[in-house]
């Protein structure tokens, strides 16, 4: 686990988070004390990686999901070394958005991406990522929870004092030292950003065509290949710290699209009594083992509405860290319900992990709805009478 030494009490931690950007444009969390600067010794005391911040609760290193509203609901972000499982909505309209936000956030922060899919070529997925919003025009629509930057304009906005200390962001492509960005789904991400980013694609049809002899095991071949692929990248690029040649100071963002579909060779979505009923859960377990021992974070979307065996869904949930389910109103009776007329669907936070802790940051609000409003995906509590 990439656990960071616990932040000092309240004030100390907040001040140190407003650190100045260094020459390499890396946001660094600098703790006040004798060892104020990050060193390359790799000791667990300090980690300074772009696009991460320590959790205020337990010092756990967090990355943004690409959706600041969701970050808040998850207690600040997604912990490095964990899995975010997104249960897809029925027609897979909104879950791909969460998938893309996660990947886009990785590109903006300079993280390495690993995109795996059985139905879409990862290169195509990356071309369709939403463009980041780098200007202030739409920020004014939001309340004070938004962490924002001011461009050259001198409009003074009423924002919390600590954000005023944050470095100004350059209006331009690539680096931003902010945690969590907003994206415009109506625009595509600039091609230059993708070209300068580091990414690996796993497109199942391509990988399965090569006749590698894979050792027989109760995993379906597709899952086996994917695990080996991920493990290879983690080792070769030094994300697990075991390769002495590579000193990696970056995060690997893994995105696995629609895991469990028959395209993967798994029949968990086809029938109730499936032959390979343990394949999916075993895959998740080994994957989590890989994540826990490396600087990576993973999003998996899964069409759980297709899985008929409820026991498998329960097991998959227990083997994941954070679980979020999307329920869209399209085609359901809720579409005509006046209570939901402003929204596109409900979002359920099914599980939040208790990491290094007895308690977790459970939100008090349980009825949450989302809407895709012009450019932005917002999550709000449902106002019921």
């Amino acid at each position, binding site marked *: 686990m990439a656990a960071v030494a616990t932040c000092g009490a309240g004030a100390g931690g907040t001040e140190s988070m407003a650190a100045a950007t260094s020459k390499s444009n890396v946001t660094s969390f600098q703790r006040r004390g004798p060892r104020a600067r990050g060193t390359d010794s790799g000791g667990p005391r300090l980690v300074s990686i772009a696009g991460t911040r320590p959790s205020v609760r337990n010092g756990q290193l967090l990355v943004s999901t690409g959706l600041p509203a969701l970050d808040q609901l998850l207690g600040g972000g997604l912990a490095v070394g964990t899995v975010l499982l997104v249960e897809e909505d029925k027609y897979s309209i909104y879950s791909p958005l969460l998938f893309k936000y996660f990947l886009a956030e990785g590109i903006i922060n300079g993280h390495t991406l690993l995109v795996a899919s059985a139905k879409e070529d990862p290169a195509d997925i990356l071309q369709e990522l939403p463009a980041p919003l780098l200007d202030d025009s739409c920020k004014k629509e939001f309340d004070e929870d938004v962490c924002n930057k001011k461009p050259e304009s001198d409009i003074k906005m009423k924002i919390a004092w600590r954000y005023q200390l944050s470095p100004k962001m350059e209006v331009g492509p690539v680096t931003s030292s902010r945690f969590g960005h907003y994206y415009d789904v109506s625009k595509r991400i600039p091609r230059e950003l993708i070209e300068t980013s580091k990414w690996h694609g796993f497109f199942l049809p391509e990988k399965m065509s090569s006749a590698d002899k894979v050792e027989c095991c109760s995993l379906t071949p597709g899952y086996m290949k994917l695990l080996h692929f991920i493990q290879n990248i983690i080792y070769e690029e030094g994300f697990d710290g075991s390769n002495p040649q590579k000193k990696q100071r970056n995060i690997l963002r893994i995105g696995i699209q629609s895991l469990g579909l028959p395209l993967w060779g798994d029949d968990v979505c086809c029938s109730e009594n499936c032959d390979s009923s343990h394949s999916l859960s075993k895959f998740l377990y080994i994957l989590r083992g890989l994540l826990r021992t490396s600087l990576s974070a993973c999003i998996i979307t899964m069409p759980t509405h297709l899985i008929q065996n409820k026991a498998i869904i329960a097991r998959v949930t227990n083997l994941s860290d954070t679980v979020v389910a999307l329920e869209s109103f399209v085609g359901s009776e809720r579409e005509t319900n006046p209570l939901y007329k402003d929204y596109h669907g409900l979002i359920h936070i099914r599980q939040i992990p208790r990491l290094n*802790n007895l308690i977790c940051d459970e939100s008090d609000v349980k009825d949450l709805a989302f809407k895709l409003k012009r450019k932005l995906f917002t999550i709000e509590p449902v106002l019921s009478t």
Partner: protein
Amino acid sequence: MKGMHLPDIRMLLQGASPRSSEMFPELNNLLNTTPDKAEQGKLTLLCDARTDGSFLVHHFLSFYLKANCKVCFVALLQSFSHYNIVAQKLGVSLAAARERGQLVFLEGLKSSVDVFFQAQEDPHPLQFLREASAGNLQPLYEFVREALTPADNGEAAWRCPVLLVDDLSVLLSLGMGAVAVLDFVHYCRATVCCELKGNMVALVHDSGDAEDEENNTLLIGLSHQSHLILRTEGLATGFCKDVHGQLRILWRRPSQSTARRDRSLTFQYKIQDKNVSFFARGMSPAIL
């Protein structure tokens, strides 16, 4: 059971115990036990339904380490550092315990990666991950037995051996059948509880209405063998900030007939940063 008395209700209503950071003193009161007089030869079943019962695992881990027992912890669900950081809040250092040989820790997540990607020379406790068809848990049992059998030099360094498993339901997810897991528990009980006069504590999830037959078989099978069952349940009314769930404690005598009713108590609880407070149903300090 002789020598048992009901815990003092007044103490429960008063709230948090004066001692801090020492497992969960209130839970010790409810179970009428302290580290110096821990019983032996017992199987304790931890069960959670619609909620997270892992705080009980942390409790027993620190409890038995404080009781100076040799502990073998088969930790399948989380990493070592997770358990270590929580244990430190409860006043125990797992790293130090491991250093001095009191704790044998099997880190499932990390070991699974080792055994899955590389063929091992010696049989690995999680060997079944490499196998094509459902095998058995014998290598895991051998690992436990070797960890807890006292060394030949005859010195009784530790009080009694304890096997702690978090959790058994994961084994089902990894392809083991309920029968294989029950066999494993049976063998471990024979060695740890009967032969070595130690204790065993295991967590199993109750999947409720998820119709997980294998899990139900495991749960029912274990319930019949256990001396003590601690069952945590989420509240039927849903999420509540001040009451996180309900704990039912059931004392059993597995070897005897059920002529005398098993004793059970039910409490509600709230988990805090370093402690868990218990109160009688409907008596949460927040509403009194």
